[in-house]
Every structure is written in structure tokens, then in C-alpha cells.
């Protein structure tokens, strides 16, 4: 395990808030201070094989979490995020298969830290909409008592009663409703309807009828969906796997339009996370000589909607986002 001193801070934007702690009121959507988004990158993350280096993934996770929470050791952040006795679930985005899904190494590291923070293995659920997707991403389905569960909503089922907010009426996965805390684990992809899919769009995987919400650029569906209390309150933290990104042709895995970002993004403010994610994709598209997402006809309207006065899910105002980017030496 690398010591934090072995990391080299590359750039800190909004360094003044490093020790301040972001005050984000769950369920109220009030951003009292700057929303922090931490990105840690490691150019040596990859191995000759398809899986990333497990130790470096763990080191990257620890560094990101400790930076975000201004914590002195790797377990402390998790004790702030969860409490013993809670059911904690990791909502994956595994639809694109293992090449563009949160890595097994990252999930394993998170499960280990959660257990060190007092969460029982049997109270941890790794899930996505489809069991098939989890398997394709390299996870072995398991529902054994006392162990971390790997299960899809197709097997766990959906609540009988529908819930609504604005344009959305849907049924929630029982995994979501039975969780006390959900950690959102998206991946960074271009999306041919919404422009970029990261944190908020990943909530399409917690409901039974996502296909009915892709019209009009998924707007205001994405924002409305994230307003549903069970989603807004339980999904408390985002850990995005930025090992690989897709800048064109998404949301499926398109190796020809993918690049190695070799990083990890964490934060609580889902709107800020998506705002920064969109910037990264736009930057990459520009590097590749592609037009902007707006020019392509996929403006990021859902992010603005999520930040508006009606939703207040977070901020898309760069002046109110403290982006902390660091690189492992």
C-alpha cells in the first residue's frame, strides 16, 4: 500500500476548501459550500492483462476518499459514510461489459473498506439492473448468506407500488429500497441521447421502466428520477471508475472511441460530478477533432435541469465546484 506522501499533488483547484468539509444536506439538495469533486489518476494503473493493478486501484481509492474526507487513514472516510448495521449497496453501471464497467478490483477494495468500517459482508450488495450485465462485467453472481451479494434487479425484483415525481412514474428495485446507503458506481461514457452518462443517468438502472424515459434527451426524466426520495436520500456517494472513458458512440463499449483516463472520481454532489464528467468528455472530443456535444445535437440539458430551482440536486456552476485533481506518482 502506498503512503499518502508518495502521491504527488498535480493540481488543486479550490484548495481553500480542502479542510472545510462540504456541507451537503441530504434530501434537501442544499449546497451550502462548494461541492467537492476529487479525481485521482494513476498512469501505472494498467497491467499487461485486462484487469488493473489491484494494489494501485486500492491506493487510488484510498487517496481519493482520504482527500475528499480530509481523513488520516483509509478506513476513516467509510466510517463517515456508513454505520455498522446498515445495508450498503453498490449500484454498478455494468451494461457495457467488463471493458467499460467498474473493475472487480475497485469493487473488491470498496467492499474491504466497508467491512473494515464495520459493515458485515452479508450487508453489502453489489448490483445492477441485469444479472447478465454483472456477469459480463466479470462479477460472479452470488446470494450466499453471510457473504457479499452480487445480484441483479431482474432476480431481486421491483416493488409492487409505483412511485412518482414530475414526469416519472416507476417501480424501484427492491435492492434500492432495502438498502440504507447506496454508493453510485458509474463509468464515464458518451451517450447518444443525453451527451454524457455518469452519476445521475446511472439511476436508470434502479427502475423497472428505463426505456420509457429516453425521449427529449431524457430531460426532465433524469432530474425527476433523481428527485424520488428513495433515490435522492439513499444514494449518498458517487465513486466513478474512470479507468476507461468512451467519448463517442456510447453508451455501449466502443473501443475505437475509448481512451485511458486511468482515474477515479468521487464526490457527493451528483450534479457536480456530471458537470465535471461532461467537461472531460468534451475535452477528449476536442482532442479527437469531434464537434461538441451541443453541436452534435445532444446538449446536456438534463444537468441544468437537475441544478435548477425546482430540483436543486446539486450544482452545475463551476464557480461552486471545488475540483481537486491529483495524480499518483
Amino acid at each position, binding site marked *: 500500500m502506498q503512503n499518502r506522501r508518495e502521491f504527488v499533488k498535480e493540481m488543486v483547484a479550490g484548495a481553500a476548501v480542502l479542510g472545510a468539509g462540504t456541507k451537503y444536506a441530504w434530501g434537501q439538495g442544499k449546497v451550502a459550500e462548494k461541492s467537492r469533486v476529487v479525481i485521482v489518476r494513476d498512469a501505472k494503473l494498467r497491467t499487461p*492483462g485486462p484487469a488493473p493493478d489491484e494494489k494501485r486501484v486500492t491506493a487510488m481509492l484510498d487517496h481519493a476518499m482520504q482527500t475528499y474526507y480530509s481523513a488520516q487513514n483509509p478506513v476513516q472516510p467509510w466510517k463517515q459514510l456508513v454505520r455498522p448495521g446498515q445495508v450498503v449497496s453498490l449500484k454498478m453501471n455494468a*451494461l457495457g461489459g467488463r471493458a467499460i464497467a467498474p473493475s472487480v478490483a475497485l469493487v473488491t477494495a470498496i467492499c474491504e473498506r466497508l467491512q473494515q468500517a464495520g459493515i458485515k459482508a452479508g450487508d453489502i450488495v453489489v448490483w445492477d439492473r*441485469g444479472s447478465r450485465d454483472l456477469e459480463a462485467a466479470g462479477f460472479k453472481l452470488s446470494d450466499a448468506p453471510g457473504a457479499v451479494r452480487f445480484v441483479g434487479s431482474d432476480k431481486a425484483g421491483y416493488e409492487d407500488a409505483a412511485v412518482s415525481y414530475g414526469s416519472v412514474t416507476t417501480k424501484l428495485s427492491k435492492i434500492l429500497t432495502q438498502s440504507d446507503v447506496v454508493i453510485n458506481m458509474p463509468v464515464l461514457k458518451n451517450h*447518444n441521447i*443525453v451527451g454524457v452518462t455518469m452519476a445521475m443517468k446511472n439511476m*436508470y438502472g434502479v427502475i423497472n421502466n428505463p426505456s420509457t424515459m429516453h425521449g427529449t434527451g*431524457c430531460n426532465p426524466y433524469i432530474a425527476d428520477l433523481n428527485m424520488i426520495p428513495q433515490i435522492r436520500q439513499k444514494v449518498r456517494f458517487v465513486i466513478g471508475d474512470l479507468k476507461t472513458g468512451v467519448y463517442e458512440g456510447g453508451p455501449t*463499449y*466502443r473501443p475505437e472511441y475509448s481512451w485511458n483516463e486511468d482515474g477515479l472520481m468521487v464526490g457527493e454532489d451528483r450534479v457536480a460530478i456530471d458537470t465535471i464528467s461532461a467537461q472531460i468528455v468534451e475535452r477528449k472530443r476536442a482532442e479527437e477533432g*469531434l464537434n461538441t456535444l451541443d453541436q452534435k445535437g445532444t446538449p446536456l440539458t438534463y444537468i441544468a435541469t437537475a441544478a435548477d430551482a425546482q430540483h436543486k440536486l446539486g450544482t452545475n456552476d463551476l464557480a461552486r465546484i471545488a475540483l481537486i485533481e491529483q495524480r499518483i506518482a
Partner: protein
Amino acid sequence: MMTKVMRSKGVAIAALLALVVLAGVGCKKKIADPFPASGAVTGWDKGEKTQSFNAANLYEYIDGGAEQYISAGVVGVSTSDYKFQGSLEATVDVYTMKATGGAKTIFDADPPTIDSKSVPLGDAARLYGQSVVFRKGPTLVRITAFEAAPGEGDALLALAHGVEGKLQD
């Protein structure tokens, strides 16, 4: 009881006959089996499962990516995994569109990259570093490898030719 069993058998036979008629008459564009068997293309082994999705449930396979295909008139997609020489893994997606124009629309929507090149295969084909896409009539085939490997392009192209050979003209 016996009457019930016989009636059930009768219904089953009638349903089977109907399927045979539909398969032979009404679905001429349908591809019987576009997937080369293990060993049919040197080095490539086919995975056990072949999955199929139609326009109504395509989103289960490719989420929002389905919209693009639906707009272009997708009938359905069949997909299967392959493994090359026991290590390199790839997925073969065979999309059947209502018309040739639909396959062309999807094919043309992908911008070429610096390292992509056109290759002689089907009506049009493009080879990328880790994938190959081609269209033939109303069919669009996308073969995607999950990691970079030496000689990958040649291997993918060989598999693509194997699939192309199984498509009906």
C-alpha cells in the same frame, strides 16, 4: 385426462407448424444462424450462449443506444461471445434491419478514426484497432474485442469474414 393430453399435443403441433410456416414464408430476411461454430474460423471458439433481442427489448442490451437502431428500423440483434486462441475475447453483434438503408444509416453514423481503415467485406466495412464493423444488405455486424492484443486486427477480420459468409445474400 387422456383427451386433455391429446388436445395439448394438438395445440403444440399446430403451433409448431405455424412457426415452420412463418419461418419459411414470412421471415425471408431473418438470418438462420450467422455465427460460425467453434473452429470454423481458425483460432476462434464460440461461446455457449447466443442471445437475441428485438426492437421492443433492445434497450435491455444496449440501453439508450437502442434508440439509434430503432430509428433506423432495427428488427433485432443476435449476439454471441467468442474467444481467440483461448484468451482474446470478443463479442459479435448481428443487427438485422428492415432495409439496407437502415444498416447504412448506422454504419455511416460512426466517424472514422485516425487508425481506422476501410476493408473489402460485405457492402462496406471498417476495421478499427479493436473492432470491425461491416454491413451487408439489411444486416450490420459489429465485432468488438475487449482488450488490445498483437495481431488482433487480422483475427477480428478473419472472424468477420466467417460471419459474412454465413449471411444470406
